[in-house]
Every structure is written in structure tokens, then in C-alpha cells.
């Protein structure tokens, strides 16, 4: 008998109705039940029951899952697919032997470089040199697709430990900088802090904070994810805060789940719950009353980051904010809540599917007629920007919602 790795009641919550099928990006692309949520849960249960081993085929289909959790939004039975996936991936990493290439990619590049801001900037240095010398074409195809995601200009920046509210202060909020955010999108962090200040909040950014642990949790390394969680919880316990703000949906969805992640650790369970309860995405904290429409607005659309809309159920607030700024120029995007293929490190582990979904997303954006596409997650931004470039759609800009709102607000 295989050791029980799935929470049985959570696995049995799936009644095999299939209502989740057409919400799943990978199933839409391959048409294969094995690449669907219902199919994957079936595979997980088969592994648990000892009917299937932790072999190449089931692992391949679990690997192809984006972890986008669109299936949770669609599921009437309340299946917590994200939890089942993490439990299964944890089990796979312990019991499945991967190729040398995949191991290096997963254990070294993704888990040892990305979660550390300074390592990310060092690792990206050769990329910039190559690009400067216009030699990037010499790299193998796989590495090139990675390169395409690196913005032309990095904007590394750290926020000060405390910034004061503009005008009368309503109170203090904590701010999470995010590893990829601060290296590649320092300006967006600036904009976010600025918006909060204008909204009347003092912005506290503790030095001791670190990676949120999302990359570990999604990659099936739960113990390492817990380490990250403890570090962050401790970092934010010092000051009384009204909320802890995050502007990267991917990190946010992990931060709100610290309570679940540490529920079996008596020393940390309560502290984790208290921390998670305070975490708020920037878009659900900002007051749209402060956003004014601007006259000469381009046509704009909104892409739902999976980790905001599916993992955290937030989809109306950002639309309201964007609409407040865009007035009548807002258009809905077809399949707006279908994953763009970025999904954390998915680009690196499943480049082919990532590219198919990128192409699909970009086509929908172009068809919408918008010149600006707004979203809330660094991964989506990189993915959509590089996709637009590949498609030659230079007239469309992808921007983070904080940057979009900052310009005209106030």
C-alpha cells in the first residue's frame, strides 16, 4: 500500500461530474482527459490506491498541470484541487526519479536562484551582457525562450523601511516586496507604495522578509515552503499592522495559505493564521473612490491572474479600479480568466504548453482591440509582454495595475 499522501476526504470530494473540464487550459489544448482536473484527481487517487505507480505517465500529466486552479472556481463540489496538487507533487518529488536535466532545472535554477533577489540579479547578469553584445541568438532554443521573458531593462529597487502617508494617516500597513518583483519590477513596487501613501497609509517594509515560498510549495517542497513562511511571519510580527499588502498575486495566494501550510506545527499554527488573515492584495485594499477617469484614455482590457481570481476569488475589485480610471474605454477580454501559461516556473519546466497558452492569450488580447492590457502578477506581465512582442503587436502594452493606476490617480 502506498503511504497515504492525499487527504482522503478532500480527494473524495470530487464526484467525477466533469463540470471543471472546459475551464482547464491544458485540457482545452490537448483534449486529453489525463490533462484535465477530473482526470488528474483520478490519477492521484489511483496512485494513492496503489493501482498506479509513481511512473512516467501519471507524473507527466501532473507536471503539465499549471496549478492555475481554474478548476476550483468551476467546481460545484468545493474540491480543493490546489491542496491535492501540492500533496501529490510532494509525493512525486520524494518517490519519482527525474532526468538529470529536470533535476538541475527544478532543484537548482528554480528553487535556488529565483527565491533570492540578489541571486536572480546575478543570474540575469550574463543574459544582459549577451543581449548587449547581441549574441543571444547563439543560445539553444530552450534558453532563448527563457530570455524572452527577461525585461529589456531591469528596475531593481528596495523600498525604505517606512514611508509615511500623504496627508492624514489612517494607519500602518505592511508591504511585501516579492523576489521577482523587486528585481524586475522595482518601479511597480514604487507605484504600489505611492498609491497606498496617497490612500492615507504608512507603508512598513521590514528588512527581514524573504521569499514567500510559492515556488517551493508549487514544486512539491512543502518543508522548504514552511521555512519561508516562518521567516516572514516573524518579520511582520514586530509592528501592529492593519494589513499586509502584496501586489503579486502569485505570492499573495501562498501568503493567504500560511495558516493551512503550518496548521500541524503547534508553535506556529496560530501565528500563521493571524498572518494570513491580514494579507490583502493591493487591489482589494485600495479604495476605488480615489481613482478618477482620465479624458484621453486608450482602450484597455484586463487579464485575470490565476492566483488572484481562481486562488483568491478576486475578480470584481480590479475591474472596478480599472474601469474607474478608464471610463468607457474598458472592454472585456475573451477567456480573461484562462491562464497565460506563465504559472510561476512553468515556462521553464513545460515550455511547449507555456507557449501554446501564451499564443492563445495574446490572440485574444489582439482580438479585443485593446491597446493596454492590465494585470496583477509579474509572471503574467512577463509572459504577455514577450508574447505580444513575438506576435509583432507593438501597439499593445501590458502593465501592472499599480503602474496603470498611479499615473492618473490623485
Amino acid at each position: 500500500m502506498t503511504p497515504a499522501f492525499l487527504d482522503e476526504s478532500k480527494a473524495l470530494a470530487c464526484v467525477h461530474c466533469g463540470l471543471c473540464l472546459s475551464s482547464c487550459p491544458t485540457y482545452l489544448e490537448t483534449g486529453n482527459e489525463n490533462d484535465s482536473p477530473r482526470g488528474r484527481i483520478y490519477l492521484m487517487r489511483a496512485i494513492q490506491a496503489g493501482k498506479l505507480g509513481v511512473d512516467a505517465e501519471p507524473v507527466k500529466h501532473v507536471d503539465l498541470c499549471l496549478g492555475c486552479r481554474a478548476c476550483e472556481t468551476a467546481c460545484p463540489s468545493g474540491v480543493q484541487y490546489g491542496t491535492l496538487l501540492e500533496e501529490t507533487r510532494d509525493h512525486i518529488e520524494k518517490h519519482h526519479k527525474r532526468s538529470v536535466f529536470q533535476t538541475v532545472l527544478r532543484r537548482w535554477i528554480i528553487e535556488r536562484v529565483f527565491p533570492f533577489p540578489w541571486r536572480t540579479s546575478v543570474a540575469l547578469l550574463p543574459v544582459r551582457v549577451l543581449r548587449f553584445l547581441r549574441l543571444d541568438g547563439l543560445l539553444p532554443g530552450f534558453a532563448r525562450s527563457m530570455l524572452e521573458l527577461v525585461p529589456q531593462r531591469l528596475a531593481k529597487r528596495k523600498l525604505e523601511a517606512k514611508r509615511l502617508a500623504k496627508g492624514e494617516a489612517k494607519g500602518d500597513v505592511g508591504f511585501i516586496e516579492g523576489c521577482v518583483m523587486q528585481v524586475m519590477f522595482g518601479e511597480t513596487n514604487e507605484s504600489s507604495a505611492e498609491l497606498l501613501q496617497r490612500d492615507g497609509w504608512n507603508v512598513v517594509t521590514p528588512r527581514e522578509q524573504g521569499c514567500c515560498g510559492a515556488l517551493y510549495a508549487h514544486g512539491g517542497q512543502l518543508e522548504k515552503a514552511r521555512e519561508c513562511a516562518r521567516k516572514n511571519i516573524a518579520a511582520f510580527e514586530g509592528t501592529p499592522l492593519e494589513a499586509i499588502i502584496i501586489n503579486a498575486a502569485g505570492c499573495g495566494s501562498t501568503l493567504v495559505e500560511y495558516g493551512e501550510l503550518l496548521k500541524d506545527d503547534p508553535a506556529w499554527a496560530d501565528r500563521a493564521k493571524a498572518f494570513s488573515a491580514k494579507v490583502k492584495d493591493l487591489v482589494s485594499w485600495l479604495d476605488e473612490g480615489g481613482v478618477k477617469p482620465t479624458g484621453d484614455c486608450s482602450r484597455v482590457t484586463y487579464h485575470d491572474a490565476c492566483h488572484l481570481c481562481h486562488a483568491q476569488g478576486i475578480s470584481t475589485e480590479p475591474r472596478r479600479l480599472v474601469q474607474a480610471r478608464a471610463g468607457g474605454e474598458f472592454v472585456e477580454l475573451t477567456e480573461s480568466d484562462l491562464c497565460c501559461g506563465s504559472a510561476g516556473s512553468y515556462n521553464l519546466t513545460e515550455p511547449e504548453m507555456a507557449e501554446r497558452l501564451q499564443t492563445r492569450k495574446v490572440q485574444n488580447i489582439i482580438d479585443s482591440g485593446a491597446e493596454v492590457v492590465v494585470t496583477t502578477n509579474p509572471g503574467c506581465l512577463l509572459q504577455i509582454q514577450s508574447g505580444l512582442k513575438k506576435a509583432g503587436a507593438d501597439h499593445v502594452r501590458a502593465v501592472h495595475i499599480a503602474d496603470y493606476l498611479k499615473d492618473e490617480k490623485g
Partner: protein
Amino acid sequence: MRWIQTIPPDVKPSLQKTMVDRLASVVGRDAVISQESELVVYECDAYTMQKNLPTAVVLPATVEEVVQVVRVCNELGLPIIPRGAGTSLSGSVLAVDGGVMIALTRMNRILNIDVRNRRALVEAGCVNAWITREASPHGLFFAPDPSSQPACTIGGNIATNSGGPHTLKNGVTTNHVLGYEIVLPDGSLKWLGVGPDGGEDVEGYDLRGAAIGSEGMFGVVTRALVRLVKTPASFKTFLAVFDSVDQASHTVSDIIAAGIVPAALEMMDQVITRALEEAYKVGFPLDAGAVLIVELDGLPGGVEHQAKQVEAICAKNNAREVRLAKDDAERAALWKCRKRAFGAVGRLSPNYVTQDGVVPRSKVPTIMQFIREVSEKHQLRIPNVFHAGDGNIHPLILFDERDPDQVKRALLAGDEILTKCVELGGSVTGEHGIGAEKIDFMEKQFTKDDLEAMKKLRAVFDPDQRCNPHKMFPGAKRCAEFAQKKQVAV
């Protein structure tokens, strides 16, 4: 976790290799699934009481590929099983004796929306809800709305002649399919009914109706020309709350007797409303015995008039409260809830079987009472959510597959309820089909002559009985172990 036994198909290794090679030469390697570890997910549909592995699954991308796949199967003498999304609730896609499953999931495009003539040409794997999504900007929609519409395919809808909450007024799938293309089991390609470029008239015999509702036994549907209807000018959607199922049932009869044909008339009992309230927080009263959703649509004046009548009828039957959805958002929330009711039951129990019977509308109170008795007798919870307007009941029998005795009792309870439906002058399926599940009831419902006539019709399309075999007709082969014990958990 226990696993339910599946029986690997009995195919000679040499045939297996020939089959895989030949199928792959048509559709490509990545579109042929033949390893047991990847076939497992195809061993059942949304009816999970019986399971069996297909010999292979193919995922063709074009009509021509479907034709070639069917020809290969014909030459090799292999059964074929058309498959859409696999949301069937009666095991109609079960590979009883192995066979090649042809899944249409890669053929899911909307080929054309013809706004002027109000019709759409779609591939068979197109998801039902997508048609309305694309047509709604033009003020049109596709009327058949099974609760599975976000996932189920047009091919599956045609094969099971699907209905939904709004069929009461709009009619079922057959009323909205003008014509379709079908690959017959010998590999020939036919278009039945109105052609994609033709007018509304059909030359020669109109054979369109023949394969609608044939549960995949006549061939593989590849494309369909469907009718689009105009979105009604106005809606009024009520939620009426009652202390008892009886009161609600009488209200249903009275509404119909008054000559009103609501767009939809749906009932949910207490267990369901509680589960839904827990999931979606729409404000269902937790202590109500039953609620009705009544939707009226049409021109504003007429709707207004009927709304007054409906409110009066509800009051006469002692409705505790009648709420009107105040805007589109509230109306949408109500329907989302109703359509997700089956799934929400997953929150109450690890497994359930959805029964699908029909009784004359006047017999709704009788069958509801009977279901309560069956529930007590077998010590199983049986909530109800159904299309009250046409007497199409959906008792959901809750059980836990890990307990073999519960499985047995669940099967018995289902049998008893359906038998009662026939006794009351109704039928054993409203819309989910016979499939593998309800074969035993065919003889209860139809005479020998009826069954012979059906078999003869089938023989015209599928003389070798190779297309979705062992379904619908008594005497069909079963999964070996199921036939003996009708018990599946091991």
C-alpha cells in the same frame, strides 16, 4: 483508499500493436492513448458505478481523421465508442467490452455564426455553453441548457437529446438541431437534415431525428448545424419558498393548469437548498421544506400579467415567501446555483447516483412521498432537485463507495424508485439516457415489439452492432462482475 475493479480489455498483443500503429498513422502518436496507465481515466463517465477500460482512445482533430479512424476500426473489427466530455450520468460512454473510444474533444470549434439566418455551424466537440457565449453579443442564444452545459458537448447533447431547466418552454435538443454530419460505423460520411448551406427544407427523407437520442449507437457525429433563438425581451424570475414539498408540487400543477408555460419551473428540497446555501450564500432559507424557481420570459406586458397570476397561485398554496430576482446579477446567481446543484451534493457525501425518471405532473406529490419511504427503508439520504414543470425527477441517492453494503442499497433504492415511475405511468429516463445503467428497465417500459422496432432501426445504421455496443438493449453484455453481483466496490 479502495479502488473499484476494472477489467482490462481482452485484446491479443499482436492486434493491439497493429491497432495502435494504424490509428497513429491516421491521427499521430500523441493522439492515440493505449497504455493502461493513461486509459484509467477513461474507464468511466460521470456515472461511476461501473468501470471498464477501453482498448484505446483516439483524439482526432478533423472530420477526415474521424472517417479514417472509423475505417481502421471497421477493418480490424473493433468496437467504436463516441465520446464527448464524458458527463453522461448513465454510463453511456462505458467501454463495456473494450473498444476504441473516439473522443471529439479536439474538434471543438465554432465554425460559423450566421446571425441573419439565426444558426451556427459547430464541430461536435464544441462545448454547449460556448455557443451562447459567442451568440449573445448578437442577441441570440442556444436554447438547450443542460446543467452540465459549461462542459458537455454538442455531440453528447445530440446523442442523448439533452434537455435542461429551460426545455419546458423551449424544447429539447432535437428542436434546436437543424442537421448534422455523421460518420457511420462503416466509415461512410453522411449529412442528415438541413445542410450547412441549404434552406430550411430537406431533400428526400428527413432522417435527422433518427440518430438524435441514439446514445452514440448510430455513428460518430462530427459537425452540427444548430438553431439560435432570440434572447427574450424581458424576464421575471421568482424564488418561492414553501414549508412542504407537497405545497410546492401543487403549485406546479396549478401553474400549468392555469395555462401558463413558464420558461423554467424547478424544484429543490431542503437538503439541496442547504447544501447550495453553504456553497454559494444566495440567501436560501435553511428551514424551508422546498423552494421553486419560476422563470417567465417574453414581452414585458405578458410577463407582467403572468407574474401576477403566479404570485396568486403561490399564495393560494401557502407559499411562505415569494422573492423576485431584482436584476440580471441576482437572476444569474440563482441559476448558477440551480445548475450546480448536483455537484454541490458532493459536499454532503463522497458519492451519489443521480436518478432520472419521469412521472405525470399530477403524480409528483406521490413519487416524492415514495422517495421519502425508500430513503427511510434503505437508510440513505435522497435529496431531490428537478424539472418540476415536466415531471422529470432527479433524486440523488447519497452513498459511500467504500462501504459495499451502502453501494448495494443505493442500487436497490434506485431500482425501486424507477420501477415506481413506470407504475405511475411515467418513464425511466427524462434526459440522461439508458446507457449501461438502466438496461434492465427497458423491458419494463417497452413491449417486445417496441424493442424489435428500435433494434431494426439501429441495424440500418450499424448492422454489426459495433458502435457503442452493449448499451440500451436487454441481453447486452455487462462488465462481468457487475452482471453477477451488481456490486462494484471490492
